[in-house]
């Protein structure tokens, strides 16, 4: 075998990952994905080992419920055959490896910078000289937007090439939010510091990223967690999904100038995040989840409160949904706007909602379950048109699905064990990987330790890392005035991408 099959949240010795020649590595990983929509690359990264760079590629198989991990060692001066030339889903991963270590790729179609980290190999590449695609023509014009946008949102630069009102091409340049998260994971030694880092990766996915970090850490330390911890995390994950989906429906209504929807969905988000505050003291769940312990146990009182919140939320939410779904002025903006086809999402390897909108079933809750999800027999909400309306419908239905799950879950509030086992320290020379389905899609955290059990690499992959390209494809041939609603219907993370 030239790869090892592991399960979600499993820790293995680093030496257990087969190390093969780059040629074999190339053939292995590109062939694993060939004609296999059930497989996709969850993370692919490099880290220095001596004078060389060790490349580690992790391919998830959703029907076998396994993750295939393989590795290869190359020189930083190497010029390699690019995976991307065979399968586009590797494009950003290879760009990142190129940016960090200077490894060349002979046939990568666009080997452009990703996030301009301070430790990048080539400092002559700057935000100011990003090589945008251009089309020479007297009839076309370019529109540059950002990094600072009109609203109160994160920074990123969008460059449109337009023919009149019509977008021919959009290129998205990111990196403005780069805070050096992965480097800080290595530098900051206290567990609480690292947990705080995890919750600041993306402030809209606090629960998703802290659960992924906690699972990696608990796996590295070899401790199992009690039922009540997984229970609380499941509730927090679903509430985060509900809150963001509801808020996004509000923002989508804003972008088609539908004031009633904007106000109603906006106000419906408040009781959900206020419930998070009643539970853990913070509206966005910061400080709620920590590795190895349950510092805010979910009690019977909270369960009763949550049912009350749902009883008040649900009729108003469903009433608003019905109204929005029969409103011609909204539907004409949603339907057939911002379409990405099944072939395209498969080709570029999107995850989460940005895959399920076009008929591609990717949901870690079903394929690589963790916490309580194995017992829920979760069935993903799948749509087929890949347009704004598909993304609107997924949000509406996933909110209802989460309410359904949570109403069942809170019927059985678990007892809190009196003693929490101490978390201990990570195993030396170990590799751990955790996948979590955040509200946006699959989050992947990955850690490698040295012979003293210290972290030598901590890799974070937010679903936005895959999905930004889907937004760029979605707006092609749309009117530029439809860009805001396309953008909001994805609601991708800048901070999660830039790290």
């Amino acid at each position, binding site marked *: 075998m030239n790869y090892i099959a592991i399960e979600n949240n499993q820790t293995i010795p680093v030496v257990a990952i087969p190390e093969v020649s780059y040629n074999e590595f190339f053939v292995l990983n590109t062939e694993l994905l060939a004609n296999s929509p059930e497989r996709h690359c969850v993370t692919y990264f490099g880290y220095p080992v001596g004078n060389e760079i060790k490349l580690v590629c992790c391919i998830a198989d959703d029907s076998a419920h396994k993750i295939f991990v393989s590795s290869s060692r190359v020189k930083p001066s190497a010029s390699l055959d690019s995976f991307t030339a065979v399968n586009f889903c590797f494009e950003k991963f290879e760009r990142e490896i190129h940016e960090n270590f200077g490894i060349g790729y002979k046939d990568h179609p666009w080997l452009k910078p990703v996030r*301009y*980290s*301070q*430790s990048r190999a080539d400092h002559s590449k700057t*935000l100011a000289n990003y090589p945008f695609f251009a089309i020479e023509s007297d009839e076309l014009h370019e529109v540059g937007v950002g*990094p*600072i946008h*009109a*609203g*109160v*949102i*994160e*920074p990123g630069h969008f460059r449109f090439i337009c023919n009149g009102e019509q977008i021919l091409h959009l290129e998205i340049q990111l*990196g*403005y*939010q*780069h*805070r*050096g998260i992965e*480097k*800080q994971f290595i530098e*900051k030694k*206290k567990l*609480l*510091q690292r*947990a*705080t*880092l995890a919750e*600041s*990766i*993306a*402030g*809209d996915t*606090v629960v998703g990223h802290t659960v992924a970090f906690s699972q990696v850490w608990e796996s590295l330390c070899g401790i199992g967690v009690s039922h009540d911890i997984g229970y609380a995390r499941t509730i927090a994950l679903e509430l985060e999904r509900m809150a963001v989906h509801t*808020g996004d429906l509000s923002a989508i209504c804003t972008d088609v100038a539908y004031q*009633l929807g904007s*106000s*109603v969905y*906006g*106000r419906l988000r*408040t009781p959900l995040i*206020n419930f998070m*505050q*009643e539970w*853990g*003291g*913070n*509206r*966005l769940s*910061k*400080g709620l989840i920590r590795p190895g312990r349950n*510092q805010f146990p979910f009690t019977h009182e909270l369960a009763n409160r949550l049912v009350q919140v749902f009883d008040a939320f649900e*009729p*108003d939410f469903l*009433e*608003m949904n019905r*109204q929005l779904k029969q409103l011609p002025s909204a539907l004409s903006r949603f339907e057939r706007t911002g379409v990405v086809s099944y072939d395209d999402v498969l080709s570029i390897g999107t995850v989460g909602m940005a895959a399920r909108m076009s008929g591609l079933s990717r949901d870690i809750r079903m394929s690589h379950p963790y916490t309580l999800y194995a017992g829920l027999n979760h069935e993903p909400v799948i749509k087929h048109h890949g347009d704004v309306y598909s993304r609107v419908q997924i949000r509406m239905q996933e909110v209802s699905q989460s309410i359904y799950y949570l109403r069942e879950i809170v019927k059985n509030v678990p007892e809190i064990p009196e003693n929490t086992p101490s978390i201990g320290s990570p195993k030396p020379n170990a590799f751990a990987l955790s996948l979590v389905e955040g509200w946006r899609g699959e989050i992947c955290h990955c850690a490698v330790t040295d012979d003293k059990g210290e972290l030598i690499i901590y890799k974070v992959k937010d679903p936005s890392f895959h999905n930004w390209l889907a937004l760029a494809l979605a707006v092609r041939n749309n009117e530029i005035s439809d860009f805001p609603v396309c953008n909001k219907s994805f609601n991708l*993370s*800048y*901070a999660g991408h830039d790290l």
Partner: protein
Amino acid sequence: MLANIKIVYHQGKQFIPDVTKAKVPGIFSGRPVISSEKVNETALVDLCPLDAISAGPVRIDLGKCTFCGECARQFPEKITFTTDYKIATNERDRLIIKAGDDKPVEVNPEKVRDEIHRVFGRSLKLRQVCAGGDNSCEMELNAANNVQFDMSRFGIDFVASPRHADGIVITGPITVNMAEALQICYDAIPDPKIIVLVGTDAISGGIHAGSTALDRSFLAKYPVDLYIPGNPAHPLSIINGLLDLTRKLKSPK
């Protein structure tokens, strides 16, 4: 039409009538209170992931604190977090809570520039710049203008163009990659103008303090008019802070 009216009716009254007196639900972590209890101060200082606590006597710097509550959990006899969300001030020193302090963190009107009351007292338009913020403070700034908190009832709004703005609201620790854009935006705002820092990341760098990916030199160049701590800052902290800055009257001389 009828369906729309029904929907509006079903929402009931959502707005908070008096945002200066509203109570927050649940166990919100607001302004901390430090008792005079004797504890192992070294352990307490060492516990904080943000180095926000210092010893002799024990102090908590709200400009560095993420309000995670770990100190209150481990040393409940020493530190408690109240639900007081009014923690914005124009003086950086006021964010440092000392043992025995149990008074509100406030804007000191004596230190507010004259033109702030005169020019912005009844209308304030702000340009927000996210410079490495994780989108949590940004979401709370947006929430400050939703139908519940409704900040625009006070004439305080966010605008798209810096040319229309009276000041800049910065979130995030200010990354190297955003430093230039922040400067350009600030320069484009006409005088007089204010600078407001929202959230722990903006005030001190937060958990990212010391990262080589930050460039906080912007803040060394200009005086800051308002610090609004929080991780993220609560909409009520934001609204009350801005109201205090622009409307709180100086004591008569």
